[in-house]
C-alpha cells in the first residue's frame, strides 16, 4: 500500500467507527508499518486543520477519532439536539477526578477520600464507559481496581493522562493549602 492508499483507508475506518480507534487495530488490519500509518494520520490532521473543513481528527492516547469542529457546534445543535450533551453530576466529576489521579484505585479508597458510599456513581461511570476495572488488588478479598478508559480521554479532550495538571501530592499539605489561598 502506498501512502495515499493508507491515508484513504484510515479515513474510511475512522469515519465508520465513530469511537476512538486504536492505532494497533489500524495496523493489524492494514498490515503496514507503523511509520506509514503515522504519516497518513499526520497528513489527515493537516488536511482537516484547513479552515474550510468541518471535521477534526483528534488524538486520545493511542487512538484517533473524527469529531466535528467546535466552531460549528451551534449549527449542529440547531440541526438536532446531540444526546451526548448530558454533562456529569458534581458527584460523578468528583469521583472521576479521584480515579483519574489515583488509578489504579479501589472502591474503598475512593470512598475514604469522598467520605461517602460511591458504588452507585462508580457503576454509572462504568456504564458510561469512562472508567473500567483494570485489575484486582493482591489483598484479602481481592478488591477490584478501577482506572480511566480511552473514552475518558476523548470525553475530556485529553491527548493522554500526562495532560492532567500535576497534583503536588508528596509536598507538605500545609504549604499546598497556603498556595491555594494565595490564588484566591
Amino acid at each position, binding site marked *: 500500500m502506498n501512502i495515499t492508499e493508507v491515508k484513504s483507508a484510515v479515513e474510511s475506518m475512522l*469515519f465508520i467507527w*465513530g469511537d476512538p480507534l486504536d492505532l494497533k487495530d489500524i495496523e493489524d488490519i492494514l498490515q503496514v508499518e507503523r511509520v506509514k500509518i503515522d504519516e497518513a494520520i499526520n497528513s489527515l490532521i493537516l488536511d482537516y486543520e484547513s479552515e474550510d473543513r468541518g471535521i477534526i481528527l483528534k488524538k486520545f492516547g493511542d487512538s484517533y477519532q473524527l469529531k466535528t469542529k467546535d466552531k460549528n457546534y451551534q449549527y449542529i445543535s440547531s440541526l438536532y439536539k446531540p444526546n*451526548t450533551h448530558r*454533562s456529569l453530576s458534581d458527584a460523578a*466529576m468528583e469521583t*472521576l477526578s479521584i480515579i483519574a489521579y489515583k488509578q489504579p484505585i479501589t472502591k474503598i479508597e475512593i470512598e475514604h477520600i469522598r*467520605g461517602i458510599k460511591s458504588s452507585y456513581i462508580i457503576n454509572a461511570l462504568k456504564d458510561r464507559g469512562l472508567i473500567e476495572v483494570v485489575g484486582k488488588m493482591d489483598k484479602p478479598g481481592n478488591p477490584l481496581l478501577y482506572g480511566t478508559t480511552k473514552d475518558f480521554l476523548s470525553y475530556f479532550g485529553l491527548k493522554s493522562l500526562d495532560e492532567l495538571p500535576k497534583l503536588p501530592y508528596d509536598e507538605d499539605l*500545609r504549604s499546598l493549602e497556603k498556595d491555594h489561598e494565595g490564588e484566591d
Partner: protein
Amino acid sequence: MEYIVNLNKFQGPFDLLFHLIEENEIEIYDIPISEITEQYIIYLNRMSEYSLDVTSEFILMASTLIEIKSKMLLPSFSDNEEDDPRQDLVNRLIEYKLFRDVSEEFKDWEEEELKFLPKPKEEVEYDFKFNEQILFEEINVYDLLNSINSLLKRRKIEIGREAPKFNIRYDEYSVTKCIKIIKNILKDKSKVSLMDIFKIDFNKGFIIAIFLSILEMTRDNTIKIIQDNLFEEIYLISK
C-alpha cells in the same frame, strides 16, 4: 423551600463540613471544633426534619467530631503539633478539597470537548456480533415483499374477516354447591378422604371448587382436616 434544595446538594459529610468552614470563614488548620460540631449537628437535624436521607456517613462524621471535641477538652501533655486531635480530619479534608477543586477543572474540559461531536458508533455494531449478512445472502427486496404478502394471506385464512369468537361458560360447580356435596357425604360418613371426593368428578373446575369449599368450611369451623403423615391421605371430619 430554598433551604431544602440547599441541604440536598451536599455530596457527603466532607462537603457539608466545607460548607460550614466557608460559611464561617474559618481557617482550616484551626477549626473551632466545638462550634463546628454544634452547627454540623443542627444541619443533620434539619436534614431529617425535611425527611432527607441522613446516611450513616453523616452520622459517623458527627461522632468523629464529638470524639475530637472530647479529646481537645483533655489537658494536653505535649506541645507537639502532631498530637493535635484534629490533624487526621484536617488532612482528609484537604485531600478531599484537592479533588473537589480539580473536578471543577474537569468540568471546564468537559464543556469545551462537548462542542466537538463524534458520530455515534451503534449502527455498525451489530454486524460484528452476528454475521447477519450471511443469513440474507441472495435475498432481494422482492423476496421480502413476497414473504410478507404470503404471511399476511396466511393470517387472513386463519382468522377470517369476522371477529374471533370466545365461549364463556358458567362454572359447572360453584363453591356453594360443593359445600353442599361435602356436607352430604359427611352426613353418612364420619370421615372422608380427599381423593374419594375427587373421584366424583375429575374435572378441573370441580377440583378447584372443592379445594375452595374445604378452605371455606375450615374457616367456618364446620370441618376439620387431618393427615397422619406427610404425603399420606388427607381426611375431612365433620365437627
